């Protein structure tokens, strides 16, 4: 850390981790409700648990990326943040709005919430991930504008590196792509267009650029490899992301009432979407091999290398499995999709957030790296979370397979509830894996409470003795 | 001593003329009645043109065998798929 103002990242990172914990708790509840439909009913119905889970996911990821931007942009621009105070105020507004949203889900019936927040005047509520009431959506835009103003002004007055340009540019993209949230026409085809511009536009376009920028920053810092090399790779990854991802949106337009040519365009172009993830792997490991120093923050390196691998698994492999039109014909909306969503969201976007937090937090707390003991906790948390997320994905894949075999591709299709019953064992497995994930998260969080910093002398002595 | 390697002037210009000529042939063939011989000719011309670009313009004729094989394999696969779908149509 070189600039005082980078410290505003701390509340963002802490807040993100707290919301992450909340997300997982709601995930566990929703998972239990799969096994016992009346669990916590009527106090907390499944749909509320589900949308609290997914909204918290989005909010904590956004919070982590904002923290990352406040940390990275000044360092790259080599100047103090334009307005640290604005960043802090924005944090509290964002956190309050996020908490209010979840509380209103929990304590106000959704239809009533819609009525009292003006949804009749401008309907926006009800679509997945975008369930927030209108005032909250407006608030999200304002928070984003505040962030964009702050980092853009910082960028303008400082050094313009490629990492900063890609990062700030993709943050602008993130905000612009949110605007279709205010477009919710009656026509379901058009409504789903608008919805996918956001969801697909984010995860298979814009956020991949954020991911690339964050990973690039971490790898430059940790390996000491020349900036030019990293930047060249980033530009290629950006280009491949856009070439495949923009038209690849067609994989959501099959059989929806959209023109039939999307079956071809979506199939062909989305089939290339794994390429940028493969490039990310090649890039990260090339940087690792070309490293000029051994950074003492082993945990951050583990996250940074785990991210592209898990992202490829979740987005590249599980995404590819369901993306071709003939596959979607059978798999659409089954638990194959949920398996892919979990593995991809965790592997790409949660993990890169945890990677930047892992790299930045020790620096923000005034040390180059955490003590070896703290890092051991963190890395144990890494492995438990990664492995149990693979477990969740495999369990959901099993459940998806049951649906495809007994319902979608069956001569004599079973009803939805009959199929759910047949898949019960997989829902149990999902819940167990989810519990393991929760434990992994606690282990990970524990690492923040282990005092002390990395001591070269001590580690050396230990290594020699061993 | 290793000399700085310039792409020799002549082959490059010759290749350019060849490309113009071959393109004209392709255009000429495009109006002919369809047939397998025509198809073979058209694809053959395409592969020759592609080879000229790869070898002389891109300069891959001066690179390691590996890269030349990679490119040749690429063209073979693409040409092969086109030929295959024509034959099985």
């Amino acid at each position, binding site marked *: 850390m070189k600039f005082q103002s980078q410290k505003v990242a701390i509340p963002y990172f802490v807040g993100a981790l707290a919301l992450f914990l909340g997300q997982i708790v709601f995930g566990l509840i929703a998972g239990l409700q799969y096994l016992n439909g009346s669990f916590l009913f009527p106090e907390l119905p499944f749909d509320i648990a589900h949308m609290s889970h997914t909204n918290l996911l989005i909010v904590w990821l956004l919070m982590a990326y904002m923290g990352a931007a406040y940390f990275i942009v000044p360092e790259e621009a080599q100047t103090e943040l334009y307005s640290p105070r604005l960043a802090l105020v924005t944090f509290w507004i964002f956190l309050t709005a996020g908490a209010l949203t979840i509380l209103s889900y929990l304590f106000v019936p959704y239809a009533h919430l819609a009525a009292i927040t003006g949804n009749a005047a401008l309907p926006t509520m009800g679509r997945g991930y975008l369930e927030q009431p209108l005032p909250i959506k407006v608030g999200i835009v304002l928070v984003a504008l505040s962030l964009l103003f702050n980092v853009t002004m910082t960028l303008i007055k400082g050094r313009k590196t490629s990492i900063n340009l890609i990062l700030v540019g993709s943050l602008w993209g993130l905000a612009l792509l949110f605007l279709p949230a205010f477009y919710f026409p009656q026509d379901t085809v058009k409504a789903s267009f608008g919805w996918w511009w956001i969801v697909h536009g984010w995860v298979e376009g814009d956020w991949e650029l954020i991911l690339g920028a964050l990973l690039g920053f971490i790898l430059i810092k940790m390996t000491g490899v020349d900036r030019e*090399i990293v930047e*060249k*790779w980033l530009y*290629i990854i950006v*280009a491949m992301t856009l*070439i*495949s991802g923009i*038209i690849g949106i067609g994989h959501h337009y099959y059989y929806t009432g959209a023109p039939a*040519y999307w079956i*071809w*365009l979506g199939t*062909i172009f989305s*089939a*290339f979407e794994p*390429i940028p993830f493969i*490039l990310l792997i*090649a890039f990260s490991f090339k940087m690792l091999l070309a490293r000029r120093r051994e950074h003492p923050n082993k945990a951050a390196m583990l996250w940074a290398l785990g991210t592209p691998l898990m992202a490829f698994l979740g987005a590249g492999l599980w995404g590819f499995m369901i993306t071709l039109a003939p596959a979607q014909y059978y798999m659409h909306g089954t638990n194959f999709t949920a398996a892919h969503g979990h593995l991809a969201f965790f592997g790409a976007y949660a993990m890169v957030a945890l990677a930047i937090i892992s790299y930045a937090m020790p620096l923000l707390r005034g040390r180059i790296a955490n003590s070896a003991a703290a890092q051991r906790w963190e890395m144990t948390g890494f492995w438990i979370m990664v492995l149990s997320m693979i477990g969740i994905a495999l369990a959901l894949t099993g459940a998806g397979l049951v649906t495809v075999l007994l319902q979608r591709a069956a001569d004599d299709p079973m009803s939805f509830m009959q199929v759910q019953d047949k898949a019960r064992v997989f829902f149990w497995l999902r819940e167990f894996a989810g519990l393991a994930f929760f434990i992994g998260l606690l282990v990970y969080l524990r690492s923040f409470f282990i005092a002390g910093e990395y001591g070269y002398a001590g580690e050396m002595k230990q290594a020699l003795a061993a | *001593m*290793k*000399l700085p*390697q*310039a*792409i020799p*002037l002549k082959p*490059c210009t010759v*290749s*350019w003329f060849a*490309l*113009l000529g071959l*393109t*004209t042939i*392709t*255009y000429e*063939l*495009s109006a002919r009645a369809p047939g397998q011989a025509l198809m073979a000719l*058209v*694809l053959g011309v*395409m592969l020759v*043109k*592609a080879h000229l*670009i*790869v070898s*002389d*313009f*891109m*300069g891959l004729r*001066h*690179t*390691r*065998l590996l*890269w030349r094989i*990679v490119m040749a394999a*690429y063209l073979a696969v*693409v040409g092969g*798929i*086109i030929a295959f*779908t*024509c034959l*099985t*149509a």
Partner: protein
Amino acid sequence: MATEISVDYPQALPGDFAIWIFIFAELVVFAALFAAYAFARSAHLEMFDAAQATLDRAYGYANTLVLVTSSYFVARATQSIKAGRATRCGHWLAGALGLGGVFLALKLAEFQQDLAHGISLSTNLFYMFYLSLTFFHFMHVVMGMAILAVVAYKAYAGRYGAADHAGVETGASYWHMVDLVWIILFTLVYVVH
């Protein structure tokens, strides 16, 4: 003592290796598009041939000549910079850029004509492929021109030299790739019938 040195010793790929990773990825993408076209065509032979016959092949022919020539100019630009002649390199690149502009203009005129005939992605499978393949390639020409423009600017600014020509080769390699896929595209979409 070495008296005879073969000038033809093998070299690494011209330009920056990173651009080659990109080029190979792009080639794979185009190959899949070509394969999809070829298989779709074999499944709907009559319709493809009938629709293809309505294309104005003169456009494709002219554009191939234009693009091949611009590629030649770029090859000459690479030779110039290796000979240390930066301004001449810039001139060749400027010429190539001009031809790229001609290609875009011709292609737009052709699209304009299609549009006037009421042709769209939904007309039939052939036009779906024809329009999306050529538009996808069109965007690559635009991107290639952006790269060439940067290289040309740097060449005129004296940022390259006989010993430092990798930047020119990098841009040139991409442009040749754009030319290469057009050769295949032209043959496949305009000619093979």
